[in-house]
């Protein structure tokens, strides 16, 4: 379960002054569902998800992630969260096994627990073939599956995906999308940010449209279609953010 209440993040920039990257964001995402955060580049998706994953501290407001407050117990929140982003890279000089085991240990797993979890994940993700190969090797398998195993090693209740398919080829992106669905099917709470409409349409149970740090529309796909009298998510999105002229200006 993720519950954000008036979550706000203000950055101070010497040139541009005060920037409200996330502005009074409130949202609720129950377990077993995928919440899609849809927004253009710079809309505040990454900042919002980093706040939920406690990589950043909110300026005001708060959020409860798997029952822990992000402001009061960020380290406990992180034990419950699996965070996967296009920007979360692998250690190239470690093998896939070392990479996953390292994060298992950082999550406090004992060596015995680690061995069991690692075996299970390697079976499930079919990783045995390249488990002892270095992450910087040119193997698509390693690059697709090691980050997934890394986020799952501690069996988190909440999964946060920040544009995880950005820059990936079709097959790698498909692997990620399938993995996201599997997380939902297992009853995990999933929040997924993207600016690709088709991905949001395929994956998300609830869609929140974020613009200039504010949540401008929220609902299931059907609810949004009804509210904006549009069939296509892209058209809905453009209407929600205030039309094309406003988007270009922003």
């Amino acid at each position, binding site marked *: 379960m993720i519950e954000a209440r008036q979550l706000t993040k203000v950055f101070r920039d010497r040139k541009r002054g005060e920037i409200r990257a996330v502005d009074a964001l409130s949202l609720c995402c129950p377990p077993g569902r995928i919440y899609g955060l849809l927004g253009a580049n710079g809309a505040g998706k990454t900042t919002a998800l980093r706040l939920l*994953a406690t*990589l950043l501290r909110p300026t005001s407001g708060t959020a409860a992630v798997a029952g822990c407050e992000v402001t009061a117990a960020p*380290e406990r929140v992180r034990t419950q969260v699996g965070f996967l982003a296009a920007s*979360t*890279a692998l250690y190239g000089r470690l093998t896939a096994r070392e990479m996953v085991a*390292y994060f298992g240990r950082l999550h406090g797993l004992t060596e015995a627990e680690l061995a069991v979890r690692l075996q299970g994940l390697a079976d499930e993700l079919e990783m045995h073939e390249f488990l002892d190969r270095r992450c910087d090797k040119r193997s698509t398998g390693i690059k697709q599956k090691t980050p997934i195993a890394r986020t799952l090693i501690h069996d988190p209740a909440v999964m946060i995906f920040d544009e995880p398919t950005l820059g990936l080829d079709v097959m790698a992106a498909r692997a990620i999308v399938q993995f996201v669905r599997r997380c939902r099917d297992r009853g995990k709470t999933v929040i997924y940010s993207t600016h690709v409409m088709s991905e949001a349409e395929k994956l998300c149970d609830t869609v929140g449209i974020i613009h200039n740090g504010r949540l401008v529309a929220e609902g299931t796909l059907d609810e949004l279609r009804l509210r904006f009298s549009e069939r296509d998510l892209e058209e809905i999105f453009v209407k929600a953010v205030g039309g094309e002229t406003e988007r270009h200006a922003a």
Partner: protein
Amino acid sequence: MHLLWRNTLTIFAKELRDSLRDRRTLISMIVVPTLVIPLIMIAAGAVMTKVMRKAQAEASPIAIIGGAEAPAVAAELRADARFQIVETTDYRKEIADKRLRAAVELPPGFAAALARGEPTTVILYHYETELRSGMGVGALEEFFRKLRERTVEQRLTAQGLPAALVKPFAVKRENVAPPERVGGNVVGGMIPYIIILLCFTGAMYPAMDLTAGEKERGTMETLLCSPVPRTAIVLGKFLTVLAASLASMLCSLLSMSVSFVLGAHLLLGAGAGAPHGMVVPVISLAGAAGVFVLIVPVAVLFSALLLAISLLAKSMKEAQSYVSPLVVVIILPAMMGMLPGVELNAKLALVPVLNLSLACKEMLSGVWHWSYLALIFGSTTVYAGAALAGAVALFRREAVLFRS
């Protein structure tokens, strides 16, 4: 607390393994200090000894001006194996061009003046600060001193007086400095300088790689997703940088000791004898151990400082531009310790790096000023602690971690 250390060690173990797989870290940590630096030192030493020996063995090319004024003296100079007489008119230019080491000008009527017992002056021309010229003019001075002594003796004998009349007593120098003191002064200035530099450069690459490098590669964000407290992350990374710095310094200390002993044997040993004026220096082992103890807090200071500074950068390139100028800041006080006359005192014991450089010189030559050593260790520990606290504080600032 127990959990913090467990996490710190997990991070340290991983960073160490990661670093040891990185060729660039290995080169800066092990290859350069163990092989490159001693090789350069041995090669430079070998060339220097060879040049010195050759310069000493060679007859000094000199010119005699006014040789006709004293044919007997000129003939004696020609007969002396130390000199090779060159005929020239423009001796000043020849000396300046280093074709001549020195020239001697015998004044008009030199032989006659000597015979009459009139005072006269012999002028020696040389090129100040030029090593070979110094050797040539030194040999000439000795030649004329002996000639003068002989003349005095002849005059005394002619008057029927004993030679001891002008030499009522003899003066003799004797060295009381033990060999390691000589060693301490000869190499004591050099070694701390090299160790301080290696301690710094050994930490430089890993410090940048583990902070700015991680940000650039995107692994920092991955690491920050883990529930490990930020302090444990900094400490784990800091320990890795410190290990690299100490390893680099230890490698250099060991390999320098070995190459020093070997080099001394190869260059000066085997019956060839030390070139004139050179002493075979010995380094005290206790001194070397003292250097190691004292350099630990300096290594901590360097590691924490480098970690904090490179953390501010968002790419390796940026980190390099911050860190490279620091080398000069480190070198200056280290070099000041090599200057003659700069001695350790209570005030200088508080100046980081310079204090170590001075203390090393003393310890390697067997002098132990315990109160200063304690002051140096204490003050450097305080600076190191402050730098580490600074690095931890920086690591808690999200503006630093997520700079874009």
